[in-house]
C-alpha cells in the first residue's frame, strides 16, 4: 500500500535544497524512499533546480581551475561502494533498549547533527502511548506497523510532522509492533521523571 500521509512541499523543497537539518532530512528520506509520489515531486524540484542552475550567470573562476581539476582526474578514483541494504538496515543504530513492556528505543548515531535527536521507537501491538505535547518540531516516518491519533491512521511509509502545538495520543493499530523513525529538535520536555530517566538510560 502506498503511503497516505506526505511531507508538505516546503519539506520536500527543503530536502531538495539540502536545507533541512540533517536528522530531519534522514526522516524525510525514509518516507521518500518508499513513496513514488514524493520521489516524483523531488525529481520535479530537482529538475527545476537544475534549470535554475543552468540559467545562472557564470561566476569567474580561478584561471588555473581547469588545469587543477584535470590534474586530479588521474588520481585513482576511490571505489564507490553502493550499499544495497534497505534504508533501515543502513541506519547506524545504537543498541536497542527496553523502556517498558513492549516498548523499545534505539538512538541513531548522527554526529553531524548534534542538535537533532534521531531514534527508532517501537511500541508493541495494542500499545497506548502517553498523551503528550510537542515543544518543538518533530518529523516521524512509520517504518512498520501502524498507529492512529487525532490526525488519522498512519501506516508503514506514512510521514507526520508535528509542530509545538500538537497534543496527541497515538494508539498502535493491528497485530504488529509499530516502529517509527523520529527526529526531534533540540531539547524536548519529557512528561515526567521516569520518562527522563528512561530516555537518559536509552541514550537517544
Amino acid at each position, binding site marked *: 500500500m502506498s503511503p497516505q500521509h506526505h511531507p508538505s512541499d516546503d519539506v520536500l523543497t527543503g530536502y*531538495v535544497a*539540502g536545507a533541512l537539518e*540533517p536528522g530531519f532530512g534522514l526522516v524525510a528520506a525514509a518516507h521518500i524512499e518508499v513513496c513514488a509520489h514524493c520521489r516524483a515531486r523531488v525529481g520535479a524540484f*530537482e*529538475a527545476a*533546480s*537544475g*534549470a*535554475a*542552475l*543552468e540559467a*545562472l*550567470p*557564470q*561566476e569567474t*573562476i*580561478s584561471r588555473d*581551475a581547469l588545469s587543477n*581539476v584535470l590534474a*586530479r*582526474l588521474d588520481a585513482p*578514483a576511490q571505489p564507490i561502494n553502493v550499499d544495497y541494504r534497505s534504508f533501515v538496515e543502513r541506519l547506524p543504530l545504537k543498541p536497542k533498549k*527496553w*523502556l*517498558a*513492556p*513492549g*516498548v523499545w*528505543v534505539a*538512538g541513531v548515531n548522527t*554526529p*553531524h*547533527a*548534534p542538535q537533532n535527536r534521531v531514534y527508532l*521507537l517501537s*511500541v508493541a501491538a495494542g*500499545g*497506548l*502511548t*502517553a498523551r*503528550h505535547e510537542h515543544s518543538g518540531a*518533530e518529523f516521524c516516518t512509520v517504518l512498520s506497523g501502524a498507529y492512529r491519533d487525532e490526525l488519522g491512521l498512519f501506516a508503514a511509509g506514512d510521514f507526520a510532522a508535528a509542530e509545538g502545538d500538537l497534543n496527541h495520543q497515538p494508539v498502535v493499530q493491528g497485530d504488529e509492533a509499530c516502529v517509527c523513525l*523520529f527526529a*526531534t529538535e533540540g*531539547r*524536548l520536555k*519529557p*512528561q*515526567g*521523571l*521516569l*520518562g*527522563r*530517566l*528512561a*530516555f537518559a*538510560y*536509552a*541514550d*537517544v
Partner: protein
Amino acid sequence: MHDRVEDTDETLLARVARGDRDAFARIFSAYAGKVKGYLLRLGAPAAAAEDLAQDAMVAIWRRAASFDATKAKASTWIFVIARNAWIDKLRREKTELAYRSIVIVTEESDDESPDDATMRGETEEQVSAAMSLLSEEQQQVVRLSFFEDRPHSEIAERLSLPLGTVKSRLRLALIKLRAHWEQYK
C-alpha cells in the same frame, strides 16, 4: 566522427563517462562558473565556493557513468552533485564542531534529555521503585538533573560539589537504574 554541432550536455556527459577529456573540458567551461555561483548563493565564502566547485567537477568526472539521460537532464544531475558537495561540506563542519564541543565544552552541554513521553504505564510505583535503588545523594542529583532539568554546572554550584562529582554520581545512578530497566525486556 562526432558532429560537434549537435553535442548536447547529455551526450557530452556520456562521452565523459567513457573517459573523454575534451568532452569534460566543455562540461567544465559550461558549468564550473555556474556551480560556483550556486554555492555562493548558498552562502559559501568565495574561496570555499571555488574549492567546492572544483570538487564537484572532479565528482562529475568520477560519477559520469551513473548519469542516465533517460532519467534526468544533465543540468539536474549536475545540480544534485553540486548540492551533495555542499551538504557533505556542512556535514564535515558539523561533525568537527560536534567533536570539538565534546572535547572543550564537555559534558556541560551533554544533558541527555531526549523527549517523547511515549512511556506507557508510567506509574508512581515505577518511579519510586526506580528511585529506591539509589542512595540519598544519587537521588538528589538525579532529581535536579532530570526532573528539575538543571545543567550539571548549576547542580554542582547548588550542592557545593565539584562538577566531576556530580557527573560521577549521575553516572553511577544511571548504572544502577540499568538493572531496573533491563527487567522490562
